[in-house]
């Protein structure tokens, strides 16, 4: 269940995209956010958060990044016992929709098209919570 208390990791190689997401989420009431500029840093942060007992509850993940792409991060998470169920929302440009399908097939939970708006973020998080509740019940 994602609440205002949830820890969110924002992964994108563009500082500006991270800032946009951060600002939108902050205005929605989220406080606990961290970011990463590529897939490798993201994985390192996910791991160290677990060790410090501050595991992330949600990841916003860019597709096209240096070092390790978003797809590789999704693959890593789904094969790792700690992150198998970690909710991941892909952040994509309109033209990259084809790649999104790959990420979704590999187990990403949802996707969002840039530029992001609070309305869409809100709808996505609501849907995600419904799915998480269903998974818990089932």
């Amino acid at each position, binding site marked *: 269940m994602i609440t205002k208390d949830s820890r969110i990791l924002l992964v994108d190689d563009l*500082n*500006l995209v991270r800032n946009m997401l951060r600002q939108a989420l902050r205005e929605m009431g989220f406080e606990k956010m961290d970011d990463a500029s590529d897939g490798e840093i993201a994985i390192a942060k996910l791991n160290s958060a677990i060790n410090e007992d501050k595991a992330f509850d949600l990841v916003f993940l860019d597709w096209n990044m240096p070092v390790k792409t978003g797809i590789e991060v999704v693959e890593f998470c789904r094969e790792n016992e700690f992150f198998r169920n970690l909710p991941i929302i892909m952040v994509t440009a309109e033209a990259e929709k*084809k790649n*999104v*399908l790959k990420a*979704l097939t590999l187990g990403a939970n949802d*996707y969002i098209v840039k530029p992001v708006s609070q309305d869409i973020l809100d709808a996505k998080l609501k849907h995600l919570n419904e799915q998480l509740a269903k998974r818990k019940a089932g």
Partner: protein
Amino acid sequence: MYSKRLTRQLKKSFGDVAPRDEAFASFLSMIDEAYQQLDEKLESAQRNLTVSSEELTSANSKLYQLNQSFDAMINSLGQGFLLFGEDLTCLNVASKACENLLECDPAGRRIQDVLHISGDEGEDFTNWCKMMFDERIAFEDMAALGPARFAHSDLNRNVVLEYKPCRDRSGKITAIVMVATDKTAEFVARKEAAELAAHVKMITNILKNKNRFRQFIAEMRRMSAELGTIANGRKFSSQNLDEAKRLLHTMKGVAGAFGLLKVKMDCHEAETILTEARTPDIQLRVLRDWGEKIKSEFESLIESNRELIGDLGNGESKREIESSVLNGFLNSILSASTPQEIALAYRVQILSVPLRKLLFEFDSYISEMASHLGKRVSPLKFAGDDPRVLEEEVRPLVSAFPHILSNMVDHGIESEETRLARGKAAAGSIEVKFEQNPEHLKIIISDDGKGIDVPTLRMKLEASGEHRLASEGSDAEVMEQIFRPGISTAKNVSEFSGRGVGMDSVRSEIRKLGGNISVKSEPGKGTSFYIELPTLGLPSSARSAA
């Protein structure tokens, strides 16, 4: 009557046993009554059964009719409807139009085969279908990732695909409806209507201003020739490529301003293809082919409209001069003491025109463009001095002008709705202010739109590798970058602007005059372009005096 049969039976078995016994008689009549009631019930039950079977028949035929009219309805819509289930096979219900639009009868076939999806894409497609059924992601969001167009064997056909869910009572998706719509006719009709309107506009524009059109022809021929020189040159560098793109962009702008839609679209197309071409070989070939195409398109347009527009094609300037101006000139000649004075009077009084007049010709261009974009713009306003110029001398300025205006209308001026919400007048306004001094002519073009989107510009810079400028550059420094090749804040490339060539070619045209251009912008308030030109052929004292 049952009791009589019963009495007979009793007599047969027991002989005449107290037939007149009253108690027995009343017992028999009770049996009679019970039987009668049973009979009635049976009869009424049978009657009910008959009625409901009649009703059933009539309901059946109603259902049949309904089905028939439903079929007729979806078949007459001309849209292709088909249903496919979780096994990804098409159900036995599909509209007739599928045969034409999807080129098969989908019933019983795999949806993947109907859409000609194979190879690697097949797996993606199957995954996509599965995810639509399990609804882990909202149906509409998932549907948006699917094939949006059918690969019709007729490449001119434009068949658009949409998906809708079919749910059972519990809300679970049991099948997906795919709707195929032919948008070809719509597309063609819109294109034809636009062409006709453009033709009418072109003729009106030409007739309204024959003189300007003559210069336009000369200008198009000059640029077309420059393009030819680049395309056929021995050496081809990235500067040549940039120059070619600038030329095409300027040609697109001026052709658009005169309503030469076909030429404009050709230039746009050539620009697109040139941008996508990767190797110099291909770029050169594109330039040669399209340069020729644009040239012949343009010349044949001039030729086919000769009887309407007269013999304008020779590019020579003709002017109508009021008699008062001629009288004034005659007086100047009579009072002149040197031939230089006469020459000057000729240039100032006969040859020069108000710059305002030259620039106002683009007013209809911006109002038309604004309405195309669903916006409103007031007529072009002028302020400050009223400089006179020699038309031939300021051609680069005049051809750069529509680009500045279209940038303002496209990116600066907001939609009517947004403007009202921000407390601005419904129609945007663009003002051109002139400031003259002995050395310079300053032209300040301002709009009251939303200003330059600096954050987006920073993002573009970041994306193009300009990390320092993107993160540390001042707003003013970042804004100056709109004059760089390849930078645009537009989200989409439209026929008007957005490829990031526009302001670059504007600067290049202004520099041809030895001038410069800069920009200032305030978020939410508007954008101003400052053009500074050196003194041209006319001495400044004579410019506004005439």
